[in-house]
Structures are given as structure tokens and as C-alpha cells.
């Protein structure tokens, strides 16, 4: 919450001039909010933000020289307290989570009334690190219910179990009656699927993803 004496200072970033004008009028109507600057590109936005140090940044996602998500990440890295509202025409859970991961404070669709943008900006100024978005709960639920994690093939599961048991490539090849180069290829595929660079990381990833069955450990 801000006191009535101190105005909220906002910078608008959108390459569409009419959108900026419409939002500016909405913020002007609010009375205690002042749009101190506007920008139409990521480069513009960075210099404007450096110069004006506003309380809240309202940015579009698609910009001519980049995107608002990257801009959010950059701003957040150097400024933990600025409120950041991501405004977009894009729909989809991915967008919401991208904004959340980038460190935005709020996410509003461009179909929503201007008042919603103003409300999100107020929230962002008060709680820059508490993310709000319409249908966030739904998006969260959807993400939880989606089957996640890499899928290993049956043979890869066998190779992984032997890797976890600490067998060398040559031993794995002998155990499974396959050539060493085939075993190596399987191991490389497993590392790639688990995003691991070596055996230790692969084992850790497998444990984390619940791919290692304790009852199978000898």
C-alpha cells in the first residue's frame, strides 16, 4: 500500500502506441499513479529504467528487439524491489509460468479491462515478490497433474539400474549381452534424457525423479 502523498511511478513498455496511450489514461484516472516514462523496445526500456528508477514496470511480452520475459529477468537481477507487471496477448500456462520464473509480480492478459492492469500495478508496488495472475491456481493444478519427467525405455531402465549399482560399461555390456558401443550409446542417451553430465549426476537425477526402485537394489 502506498500513502496518498507519494505517487506510484510507473514505466510502460509496449511497441503499440495506442495500447500505451490507453494504459496511460487508465493510470492517470487512478489519481495516485504517475506514468513517468514509456518505451517501445527492450533497449529503450533498459535505458529508461536506469534513468527513472520507477516503482513499477509494466511490459508487453512481444517486443521488436526481444521479449518482456527476458527484460523482466534482467531487471529483476539488479533490482529485487521493483514491481513488474507482464502484460500479454499470448494465452497459455507457459506464459504465466515464464513470467513467474522471470521474477514478475503480476501477469495480465490484454483482453482484461485497463482497471485490472492498474490493480496489478498497485499489487506489484506493494508486493513485488508475490506473484498474482488470473487463473494461477488453475495453471498450477494443471502443471501438477501433467505427467512430468523423462521417459526411459525398458532397456535404458535396465542400464540405469546397473549404472546405479556401480557397474562399468564393459560389465553392463556383458550383463545385458550387448556390445560395449551399444552400452555406451544407451548410457549417452540416459545422460541426455536425465540432463546429466556424468554417472553421479545421472544417479542423483534418477533418484530425484523416482526412477530408481529401492526394492530392486541388490
Amino acid at each position, binding site marked *: 500500500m502506498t500513502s496518498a502523498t507519494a505517487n506510484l511511478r510507473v514505466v510502460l513498455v509496449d511497441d503499440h502506441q495506442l495500447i500505451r496511450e490507453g494504459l496511460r489514461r487508465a493510470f492517470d*484516472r487512478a489519481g495516485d499513479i504517475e506514468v513517468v516514462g514509456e518505451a517501445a523496445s527492450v533497449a529503450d526500456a533498459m535505458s529508461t529504467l536506469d534513468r527513472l528508477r520507477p516503482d513499477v514496470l509494466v511490459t508487453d511480452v512481444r517486443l521488436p528487439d526481444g521479449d518482456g520475459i527476458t527484460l523482466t529477468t534482467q531487471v529483476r537481477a539488479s533490482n529485487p524491489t521493483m514491481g513488474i507487471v507482464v502484460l500479454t496477448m499470448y494465452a497459455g500456462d507457459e506464459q504465466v509460468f515464464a513470467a513467474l520464473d522471470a521474477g514478475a509480480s503480476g501477469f495480465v492478459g490484454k483482453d482484461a479491462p485497463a482497471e485490472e492492469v492498474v490493480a496489478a500495478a498497485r499489487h506489484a508496488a506493494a508486493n513485488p515478490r508475490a506473484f498474482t495472475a488470473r487463473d494461477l491456481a488453475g495453471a498450477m493444478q494443471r502443471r501438477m497433474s501433467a505427467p512430468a519427467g523423462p521417459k526411459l525405455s525398458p532397456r535404458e531402465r535396465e542400464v540405469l539400474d546397473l549404472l546405479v549399482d556401480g557397474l562399468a560399461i564393459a560389465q553392463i555390456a556383458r550383463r545385458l549381452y550387448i556390445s560395449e558401443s551399444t552400452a555406451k550409446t544407451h548410457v549417452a542417451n540416459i545422460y541426455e534424457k536425465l540432463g546429466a553430465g556424468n554417472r553421479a549426476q545421472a544417479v542423483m537425477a534418477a533418484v530425484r525423479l523416482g526412477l530408481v526402485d529401492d526394492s530392486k537394489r541388490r
Partner: protein
Amino acid sequence: MWQIVTVAVLELRVKSVFLPLVIRAGIILIFASTAVALGIVAGSSIGDGGVSPREAVIPALMLFCVAALASLPLPRAVPPIIPALAETLSASVIIGGIGTSGLLFLPYLTVPLFIAGLSSGLLYGLAAAATAVVAFGGTVITSSEVDIDELNGNNSLLAWVFILVAVPAVGAWIRRLRADVAPDSEPAYADAHRLLSELHVVARQLSLGLDPRTLATALAEDIRAVVPQADAVVLARSTGGRFVALSGHEPPEAAELAIEDAWVSAQPVKREASNRAFAAIPVLMGERVVALVLVITAASLDNPSLRSCRTVIDQSGPRLASAMLFDDVRRLATTDERMRLAREIHDGIAQDLASVGYALDDIRQNSDPVVAQQVMTVREQLQAMVADLRMSIFDLRHGVNDTVGLGAALSEHAQRIAAQSDLAIHLSMDESPKRLPITVEVELLRIVQEAITNVRRHAQATNLWLTVTVEPPRAHITVIDDGRGLKPGRADSFGIQGMRERARRIGANLHVGPGPEGGTLVELGLGTETAAFEPRHLARPAVTRVSLTDPHGIPTIVPQTTRSRAASPARTDQEVTN
């Protein structure tokens, strides 16, 4: 001493042929300044009679002049053999005219000869060598002061003649190596273009066309023709590293290891399991395994049969590989175009409408209650329009990929719609952990998206039941609504026609008609004789239900305990321990 100088000159001359202008200029400068220095030495030594200028210094000076001249950059139109020949000729005459110490300078002749071979190939190089021998010999014979016998001490002259022939040969050999290592990119493009043109012609004329599924079926039949009593399945690697049948039924689980080992090792693999014998034979395109043929027999396949299978596969392999590649290229091109369309809508009409919305918000705030109410109505309509456009952009950009399968994409789509419209979507998903080929998934997704969009826009329905069953290579999808049903003339409207085309492309059956209790039914069958699957699938085996119960548009998901086929850890463990 002269040998070292010769090697240095040779290196500089070769560089002067292949390097940029600046370096060439430097090399010419080196040759020219050496010649000037030698000229000064010659001038000073004539006075004091130290070194014999006629025997050593003046020829060296002349040779450096020749080297400098030969290093001059020439216009592209002049073939490189011309300066090389000129250099050979002048150097031969200079060296031949020296007299007995001419042998000292003979190594220099290797320079233009090597360059001739290197720049123009063996024939020109040998011609240059012949020029050298003739010019040198002619000069020696005509010059009265040179004694040939003296010159030919220890047969070194003969040796030199041999060397003069060998050097251009070496140059020509290096030239060939260079050509192998650094091919011109133009021929590669020309080849690619020729191949694509051929593909295009083939795609239009082939009786089988370039459809992977048709070709795979034909391949399986060819295998059965050479090995009767065998069952053949053609498999492609689908997304997520799973194998999916392009033709025939899914491979039995007992064959999984044989399939995978054949894929990884790119070699045929034979295995026996549960009183059947499997032979997994990779279809290779160069080094890459593009598909795999699984031959299932009662007893292990003997070697002659395996050989004849491999022959059949080697014949049909390239066609199948091309078809799969073609399919993929088409998919990528389509994705590109959809992205472009999405950008166009996003940057144009959608932003304009959104800004009109903000302008209306402004008017609403500044007007009296009666007007504000009217504006509010318009604003709400506009908001629905923008939401619709957001949805269209989402649909255009959204698709299946390596990590997002058909089920995930469809449920996200359904839930988006449910969250942003007044339509309650009841989704039931029965998806095998195996995936269909991505090109098929894409078309299925687009068909369902179109069907749902139709319901949202025209049906005035309150409920939509989306039932999806995926059992690769079969799939069955129904979209049922409780709206006002099909209006006459809508049966072959633009949207439905597009759905039909997509279904035809993947060999699926599509049925659009009145629903079981009013409304509309869209039914899609893949890998079945008709659109209908089995009656029980119309009984909506709900796995996930999505319905609009929250005023804020948050769908509630109620997982129901049915035989969920989602890839849960428990399920995959079962697979492993079996």
C-alpha cells in the same frame, strides 16, 4: 644453401597463389627487394671481382625478378597455367644459359612446375615439365660455353629430369586432395535441388506417393512375400524415444529389447522370447537408422531368409526414409507458417482491438451511469473478441513437440477453453505411454481444436464432452456437445472441410453428425475401419473431468480412479520387472 632458398621461394610462391592480395603484395615485395639487393651485390662485385656475377649473382637476381613477376595477381579470366608456363620457360632459359654452375640453380625449376601441377592438374603440370626440359636442353645445347658432359656429372642431369616430372605430379595430387577436403558449396546445393526436384516429381507420380504409412505397409507385404508365415511390422522412432508402428499392429513387448538394440547398434538383431522369434532389421539411410522392420516368426529366422529380408529392406529403405523426411519437412514448413500467422494477428488486429478496449474503459469511467452501462456491454463484447483472438493465437502457436504429447496438448487446450468461455468441458483421456508419430499427433490436435472452436462459436452449448483414447497405432476421439446441433449447410463448411482434409492426410476416418442426445457429434477413428471404435468408448470412461465450477474460471480437476494409463512410475516399474 640454394636448396633452402628454393624451399623458401617455393613456399612463398605457393602462398602467392592462394592467399589474399595483401599477403601477395608482401611476397612480391620480398622477391623484388631480394632482386634489388642482389643487383647491388652484383654491381659492387663486378668492381672487386669477389663473386663471379655471371655465375651466381646475376642469375639469382633474374630468377627473383621472375618470381616476383609470376606472383603478380592476374585477372580471373587468365588461367593460372599461363603464368606458370611463362615462369617455367624464362627460368629454364636463364638457368640453361649459366653454364656449369647451372646445376646449382636447377632446384628453382621445381617452383613453377609444382605450381603448375597444383593450380591446373597433372596434364598441364607435365606439359610445363616438358617445356622446362626442352627449354633448358635447348639453351644448354645452343650455348657454346656449356659442356654437357661436365654438366651431367654423376648422372645428376637425368635425376633432375626425373624430378622435374615428379614435382608437378605431386602438385596435382595435392590439388586433388584439396578438392576432396573443401568441396564447393554450389554443387552441394545443386545436388540438393536435383534431389528435391526428383522427390517432387516422384511425390506427384508415384503410385504409392510419398506417404510413410502406405510405403511401410507395402514394405511389410514385401517381407511377407519373401518370408511366408512371417509377420512384419515397420517401426519408426517416435518422440520420447518410443517406437511406433508405421504399419501393422504394435510390436509385442517381448520384442522391445531386440528393437532397441537393433536401433542403437544399427545392426540386425535376432532374439527369441516367449516361443516366438524376432529379427529386428534396421532401415539405414547412410549411417543413420531411420526406421526398423521387425520380422516375427515361430522359429528363428535362418540366414538366407534374413538376407532376402535385408535385400528387400535395402531396396525400399531410401523411399521410406525420403517419405518420412518429406513428412517432417512439411510439418516444419506448416509450423513456420502458423507462427508467422500468429505474429501477424498478434501484432495487428489483436493489439488494435485491445487498445480500443482500453479507450472504451476510459469512456466508461468518464460517463454517467446510463451511458457507462451501455459502454460496459460493448466492452464485454470486445473483451470476448480479444479473448477469442488470444485463443486463436494460442492455437496457432501451440502444438505438440518432443516433450508435449497429444494428450498434454489437448488437455491444456480444453482447459484453456473452459477457463475462458462459458463452456464446461468434460475431458476423459485414456492415453498409452507410447506416442503416435508426431505428424499424426499434429493433425489430430488440429482436428480437435477445430471441432472445439466450432462448438464454442456456433453451437450455443453449455457442455462439451471430449473423449480421447490413444493406443498407437490406433486412436479414437469424440467431441460431443449439447448445443443446437448442425444447421443445414454447415456440414461441409470451411472448418469441417479442413478437418476432413487433415483426417484424409493421416488416413483417419471422420464422422460429423447429430449427437446421441441432441447437439453434434464429431468422431474420429485412426487405424480403424470406420470412425467408430468400440461402443464402450462412447460411455465416457472419465479419467480427468474438467468442468466450470469456479466463478473465476478456475476449472476443477477431479481425477477418477479408473485404469489410468498415464505413465506413472508404478506402471513403468511393472514394465521393467515383467
